[in-house]
């Protein structure tokens, strides 16, 4: 049946909630928000969420230090975005998949990826450091927004295969300008793919502020253009991030198709360790967001609820410190990659030209090795 341009059913359900979902206010007080309950979370869950955020932040700091010490080439910090990433990822089931960008240390921590492994990509040991199938966590993706299509295809596959599996993809406010996320949102909607598009609106794409990126009322308003719901939440509120994602994930799992989440947050660090944010933002702005720190806020809530006393905090801090030390050591002691691995994984089937080139490099390495030996002897 073709569309003769008649009246259309009221699609207002696709527009984002206004005001955006906030469950914890700046002082950590909990509000009940209809449709976005966190009743399913146990005390242990609350403590887990906290632990994941603290771990993410500590490892993040460790990574920045390792970069300063010359152990990593570059690093993209998640400072300030812990609640959005951890809250979002916590709403997934074990069999679900995550497709990250390059800033998703928090989501990786929730999925159980070893941060030391993840950091190999930034160290440049190898192009990536973990097996995606081990954690259902795709490789870090640098070309902006491209992973949205991989997530969509994965979700389409799960649906065609009748699997109970939801896919979540992270990307940034800047990524919404690229063609690929647009095509991904459209494909996901057309095939009712169980895919959740989680946009961390951290206000900047490198130096470019959101106001120069889009004129949309909000990023969540883009959802209706694909015929899916757009959700919007305070991304510095881990419970709001969780509750909104849980709703979107449930929708996807129930066969109702994809949705788009905008978590409003802030990148408190430089874009990467190579960036100088003083060229494009003010100390006042940073102070304002400092006051909205997602971990401090959640800590107030936990303390008020009696879920975080000094003992527990000390214990967590000690664990985390140990972990940071372990990671530091592992990175310091990590091997150099094997040069001959250049040729190992390019193709499954053997390629004669690569065998020749491998042979040539191998001879060079031997020659260099023997000349070193010569010098040493």
């Amino acid at each position, binding site marked *: 049946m073709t569309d003769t341009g008649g009246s259309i059913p009221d699609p207002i359900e696709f527009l984002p909630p206004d005001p955006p979902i906030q469950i914890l206010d700046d002082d950590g007080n909990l509000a009940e928000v209809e449709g976005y309950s966190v009743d399913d979370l146990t005390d242990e869950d609350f403590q887990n969420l906290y632990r994941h955020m603290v771990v993410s932040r500590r490892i993040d700091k460790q990574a920045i230090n390792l970069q300063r010490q010359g152990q990593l080439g570059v690093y993209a910090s998640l400072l300030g975005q812990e609640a959005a990433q951890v809250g979002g990822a916590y709403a997934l089931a074990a069999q679900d998949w995550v497709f990250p960008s390059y800033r998703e240390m928090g989501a990786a921590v929730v999925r159980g990826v070893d941060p030391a492994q993840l950091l190999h990509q930034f160290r440049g040991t190898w192009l990536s450091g973990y097996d995606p199938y081990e954690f259902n966590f795709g490789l870090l993706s640098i070309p902006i927004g491209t992973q949205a299509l*991989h997530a969509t*295809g994965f*979700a389409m*596959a799960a649906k065609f295969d009748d699997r109970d599996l939801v*896919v979540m993809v992270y990307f940034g406010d800047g990524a919404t300008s690229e063609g*690929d996320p647009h095509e991904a949102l459209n494909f996901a909607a057309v095939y009712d793919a169980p895919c959740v598009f989680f946009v961390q609106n951290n206000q900047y794409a490198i130096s470019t502020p959101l106001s120069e990126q889009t004129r949309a009322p909000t990023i969540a308003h883009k959802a209706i253009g694909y015929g899916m719901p757009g959700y919007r939440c305070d991304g510095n509120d881990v419970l709001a991030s969780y509750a909104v994602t849980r709703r979107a994930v449930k929708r996807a799992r129930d066969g109702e198709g994809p949705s788009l989440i905008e978590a409003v947050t802030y990148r408190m660090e430089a874009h990467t360790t190579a960036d100088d944010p003083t060229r494009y933002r003010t100390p006042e702005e940073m102070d304002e967001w400092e006051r909205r720190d997602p971990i401090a806020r959640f800590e107030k809530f936990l303390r008020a609820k009696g879920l975080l006393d000094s003992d527990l905090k000390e214990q967590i801090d000690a664990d985390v410190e140990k972990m940071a030390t372990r990671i530091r050591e592992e990175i310091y002691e990590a091997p150099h990659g094997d040069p001959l691995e250049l040729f190992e994984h*390019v193709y*499954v089937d053997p390629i004669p030209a690569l065998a020749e080139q491998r042979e040539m490099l191998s001879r060079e390495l031997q020659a260099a090795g023997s000349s070193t030996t010569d010098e040493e002897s």
Partner: protein
Amino acid sequence: MAITMAQALNQALHDAFEADDKVVLFGEDVGTLGGVFRISDKLQERFGDKRCFDTPLAESGIAGTAIGMAMYGYRPIIEMQFDGFTYPAFEQIVSHVAKMRNRSRGTVTLPITIRIPFGGGIGAVEHHSESPEAYFAHTAGLKVVSPGTPSDAYSLLTESIFSDDPVIFFEPKRRYWLKEDATLPVSTEPIGTCVVRRQGSTATLAAYGPMVKTCIETAEAATAEGWDLEVIDIRSLTPFDHATIVESVKKTGRLVVVHEASTKLGFGAEVAARIQQEAFYHLEAPVLRVGGFDVPYPAAMLEEFFLPDVDRILDAVGATLEY
């Protein structure tokens, strides 16, 4: 039985769908319509719309979702409707399809086949006659294949679909209606081998896809000049089997490479560079290239002047004989 290349390709798809239910095909108008060239005719009807389906109009979307489906465990075949519409998918192909296995250190394989009807000679409008194979043959991580005969079309497509490496599969659209006596299924020489289609001694012609037939015709015409040309079907641009060409050049001492793509940095450049290196002492003349001119593909009424043809190839053979 005489079959056309289009029939061979269609049969290869049907047989692959039957052999493995993880094989799927999607793209623009490939389902209900069976593709604008009907290469996927009756696939959706027979196997349902979860195996063969139409997509929204977005090539990057098609290539990008194929990656996700392959990661999940499918074996996707995707169609770019025409050569000139491959470019929107370029980033997904170059940055991801080609690199994924390497960057994941072998943990993620992408058994994707990207079918592209390519080349000119059918009087089409702009953007429908491009020969973009060099872009992909320069890109590490891809296999690049193009059949010149119906049997090869069947066999190479089948092999591509079941290859665990991603394959860019260039279908010479002007040869879709080329006929050959053949019985399917057929299994020809594997990807990564050049095949001598005609033995000869005066000089060697090397080509792939649409120009294989043109080279055979050239060899036939050349007999009138008393020239006995050897014709090699390159078939596989990556991996490229230069050894077979080197053997031929040892015999003939002369080589002309032919393709429709612009000559500059076309695949002929690689063939020439490689053969002059490997067969330096055997060449009695430089390797010559006959390719499209270094201009955009022209309007339909001028394409005959752009495309290599028998005369132009004979001229090049003549030129090599003057050394």
